[in-house]
């Protein structure tokens, strides 16, 4: 349940897909990353994302499997958009489902942290002064 796609996603639909996996699910934690209009002191007018096909999907699958095995989640879904993204739009969604809230929160936090750390996806910010690739993440 990992996808990298240009088109926007529906948070409700993604949650429903995860809920269908098991009736043991009793708690779902989500992280939704959205496009902010301000970065490092500059006004940002838009973003675009590029990924390394095959490797990026492979890393997301690894993260999902680890979130399930090591953090006790029942299912974890990860969706990341690429291409041009306008301010306010969705960028990334993690849906982590578990029997109880603690496992769901932990799996969700692990998944977004690992996504930022090991997944070959890059962000380019467009500001008044021009475009710039971002080479680190907070």
């Amino acid at each position, binding site marked *: 349940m990992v996808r990298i796609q240009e088109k926007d996603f529906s948070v409700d639909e993604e949650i429903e897909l995860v809920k269908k996996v098991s009736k043991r699910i009793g708690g779902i934690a989500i992280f939704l990353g959205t496009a902010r209009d301000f970065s490092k002191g500059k006004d940002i007018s838009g973003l675009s994302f590029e990924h390394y096909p095959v490797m990026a999907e492979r890393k997301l699958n690894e993260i999902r499997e680890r979130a399930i095995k090591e953090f006790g989640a029942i299912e974890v879904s990860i969706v990341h958009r690429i291409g041009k993204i306008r301010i306010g739009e969705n960028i990334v969604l993690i849906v982590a489902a578990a029997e109880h809230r603690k496992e769901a929160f932990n799996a969700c936090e692990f998944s977004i942290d690992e*996504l*930022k750390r090991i997944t*070959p996806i890059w962000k380019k910010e467009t500001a008044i002064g021009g475009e710039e690739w971002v080479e680190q993440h907070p």
Partner: protein
Amino acid sequence: MIKIRFFAGIKERVGKEEVILDSKGGSVSDILKALDEDTPRISEILLSLKTMIAVNHEMAGMQTLVKDGDEVAFIPPFSGG
């Protein structure tokens, strides 16, 4: 043949997306030397950036061995999410 790929800011600095090297392999370090023959001073550009290396879609290093048919990617630090 070895496929060399560049991404994001590195792709823009290098000015191309990929290079097909007619090489039987060696270490990534050897591949960089061979790349310079295709694109002069490309290794200097790559080494001046915070470049990371992936071989066949897994993170690698300068001493990682590469063989015929492999794919080597030069990639900047990640900024997804």
